[in-house]
């Protein structure tokens, strides 16, 4: 296996407590040595990456992506999705199970990780919490974990029934797995044969669209916290996916004060955009949960700044162009996000809202790694996986969807200003993305 030296860069590894100019030697997929500039030993056989003026950080970890395989390769494949991940600085992605078939089996879990899929960064499957994600019977978590699943979730759908959610939390706790909940009380968002397609409020009223009420999220989060509390002897870990409302944030904040293991992630679109960004029926601004009011968006920003939010996740959800070129109410939910998360986070969280760079990176690497129990990731300490992102933190650029690596183009961020340009992404010692190529 080849060795790689990252020379002259500014290493920021919050988990390892490093924020200084360092040279790094990567060997056999691991971090072999870190030393002051020019001080590395044993570099004779190593390829050198000149990172002068660049920041070197642990590879980013996205705990919420949809890679669409098996079964929906026309939207994205594991190969194209991980290429997009690498271009965005991500070295690990946790893939949600709402594929075709639903990933509720060890076979599918293993299939997703097989080398034949052509992944250029590490894929960690999240298995379905219930059989077929139907919310009726929980899966065999021991077998799924043995096959490589890092968490369980029915994402795209909630685990709605109290007794099933309780069972899932208990079974997952026994296996040391996290239950990731898509918090949506579908009894409040599906009205008869009609489905709410955007946030409830004046904008939805004006556009004549059925509104998704905030309570549909918060009642599920509150219910799940109650169950987590009832099962506290087992120390279950509840993780709230794509949290989007002030009420749900408040519930998570209180649960944490009460000592419960409740974590949450927020997406860049939810902390940046509001329901007004739907404009006149932009299907690229349609996702679930929907873009919220300015008050909710501001609550998310506040929660990011004060540390209630554990991770930034993209909810990368590719859809083919023809699927989004339809009437707003008929368009599928979801937007892609792997190639814009870092640029938007640095542009807004760091540059505009003054969050220290190390904290931004923590939200994108160390904290999601801890949340999923990914050992040896989210840090560049000696001995950990050689997963790194090397980027120019000062570079300002404009994102153009057409230049992206994802197979799909559905994003509201086309033409948005970004900060921080990825130069190289290194996955377990191999260059997974090189901006010069």
């Amino acid at each position, binding site marked *: 296996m080849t060795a790689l030296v990252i020379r002259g860069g500014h290493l920021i590894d*919050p988990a390892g407590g490093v924020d200084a100019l360092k040279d790094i030697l990567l060997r056999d997929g691991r971090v072999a040595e870190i030393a002051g500039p020019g001080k590395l030993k044993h570099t004779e056989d190593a390829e050198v990456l000149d990172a002068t003026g660049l920041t070197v950080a642990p590879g980013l970890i996205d705990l919420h992506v949809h890679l669409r395989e098996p079964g929906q390769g026309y939207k994205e494949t594991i190969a194209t999705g991980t290429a997009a991940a690498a271009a965005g600085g991500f070295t690990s992605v946790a893939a949600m199970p709402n594929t075709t078939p639903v990933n509720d089996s060890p076979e599918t879990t293993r299939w997703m990780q097989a080398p034949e899929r052509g992944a250029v960064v590490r894929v960690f499957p999240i298995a379905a919490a219930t059989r077929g994600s139907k919310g009726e019977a929980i899966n065999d978590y021991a077998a799924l974990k043995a096959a490589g699943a890092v968490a369980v979730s029915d994402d795209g759908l909630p685990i709605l029934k109290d007794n099933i959610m309780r069972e899932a939390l208990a079974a997952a706790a026994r296996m040391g797995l996290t239950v990731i909940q898509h918090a949506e009380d579908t009894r409040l968002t599906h*009205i*008869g*044969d*009609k489905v709410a397609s955007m946030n*409830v*409020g*004046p904008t939805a*009223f*004006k*556009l*004549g*669209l*059925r509104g998704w009420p905030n309570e549909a999220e918060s009642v599920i989060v509150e219910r799940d916290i109650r169950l987590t509390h009832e099962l506290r002897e087992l120390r279950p870990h509840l993780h709230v996916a794509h949290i989007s409302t002030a009420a749900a944030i408040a519930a998570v904040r209180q649960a944490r004060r009460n000592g419960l293991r409740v974590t949450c992630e927020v997406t860049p679109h939810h902390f*940046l*955009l*509001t329901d*007004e*960004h739907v*404009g*006149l*029926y932009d299907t690229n601004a349609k996702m679930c949960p929907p873009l919220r009011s*300015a008050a909710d*968006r*501001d609550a998310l*920003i*506040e929660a990011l*700044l*004060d*540390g209630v939010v554990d991770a930034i996740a993209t909810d990368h959800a590719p859809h083919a162009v*023809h699927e989004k*070129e*339809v*009437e*707003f*109410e*008929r368009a599928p939910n979801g937007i892609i996000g792997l190639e814009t998360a870092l640029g938007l986070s640095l542009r*807004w969280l760091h540059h*505009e*809202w*003054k*969050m*220290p760079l*190390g*904290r931004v990176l*923590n939200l994108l690497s160390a904290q999601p790694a801890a949340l999923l129990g990914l050992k040896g990731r989210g840090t560049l300490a000696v001995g950990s996986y050689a997963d790194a992102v090397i980027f120019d933190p000062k570079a300002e650029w404009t994102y153009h969807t057409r230049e992206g690596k994802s197979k799909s183009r559905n994003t509201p961020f086309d033409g*948005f200003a970004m900060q921080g340009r990825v130069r190289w992404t290194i996955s377990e010692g191999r260059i997974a993305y090189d901006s010069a190529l």
Partner: protein
Amino acid sequence: MTPTTTKTRRPLATPPVAASPFPYNPGSLLSVYDLTLEALSHLLARATALENQDPLIRARILAKRRIALLFYESSTRTRTSFELAAKGLGADTTLVSDKSSSIEKGESLKDTGLTLRALGAEAIIIRHPNSGAAWQLEAETRLPVLNAGDGMHEHPTQALLDLRTILAHLRPGVEEITPETLAGVTVSITGDILHSRVARSNMLLLPRLGARVILCGPPALLPEVAAQAGPGIEIERDFEAVLRQSQVMMMLRIQAERLAGLQLDLDEYKAVYQLTGQRLAAFAPTAVVLHPGPIIRGLELTAGVADGPQSSILEQVRNGVAIRMAVVERALSANQGGRA
């Protein structure tokens, strides 16, 4: 790392909302917002002029121009009056409906629009059950698109013909439309506001002319948030109080096809909100009664009111043809109007 305290938080900058690119085509009429008051004055004047013109001369205006009517929902008044309007100006029209067309086979709105354009359609009049469909069609075809009702969203030509009816009664002879034209006038809209595109177009248009708009209905059909749709909109749940204040009473149908499982006690509804001869005589003896149709006699209003002297419901229908002639003419004569 020290968490930032939120106590000292300054107002944070966030990404702005981009300006709307719509309408792409200056001939389109997607929303009542697409018309400035100046364009509105012109349109109303043209409606009158076209109505009074010799039909044989009028038929030369758009002689042999091609206009497609694309109807995904059933319609009597809107479809017929658009068709009569287009034909009255000499245009060739063709009707495509979701039944008996390739839409039944799964053809998308985009492909249907592109097909009509390839067939030579120079403008498309669309009615569709999904809010925003007219915008999508315009973005895909870049043709002049006339919104004949999109879901629960807008029905701009209905608001224009309602305005023409209101002006004929309350401001006869007015020529120039200004922000004060309807100052002092209260127009109430009662019924199923939530599902009504007619209500939305009217509540967004009439306050721009100075009118006060009162919305009335039960919470299930009139959420509080409706008052935030724009300036000059109020909610009053007491129907008698509404009657007392209104110079114009616009009544709406309960839209059974859009209730989506919502349970409504119709007897209770009638007891509170039905416009009856007694109520009208007692509280609004001079108000103009409007209804966009179709009316359900005995539900939102009694047959006596529908046929009574205060009803202008058929006058609205007649005005539909004149207004739609002006709108169709505008669609095919570029660069009239412009966004409000």
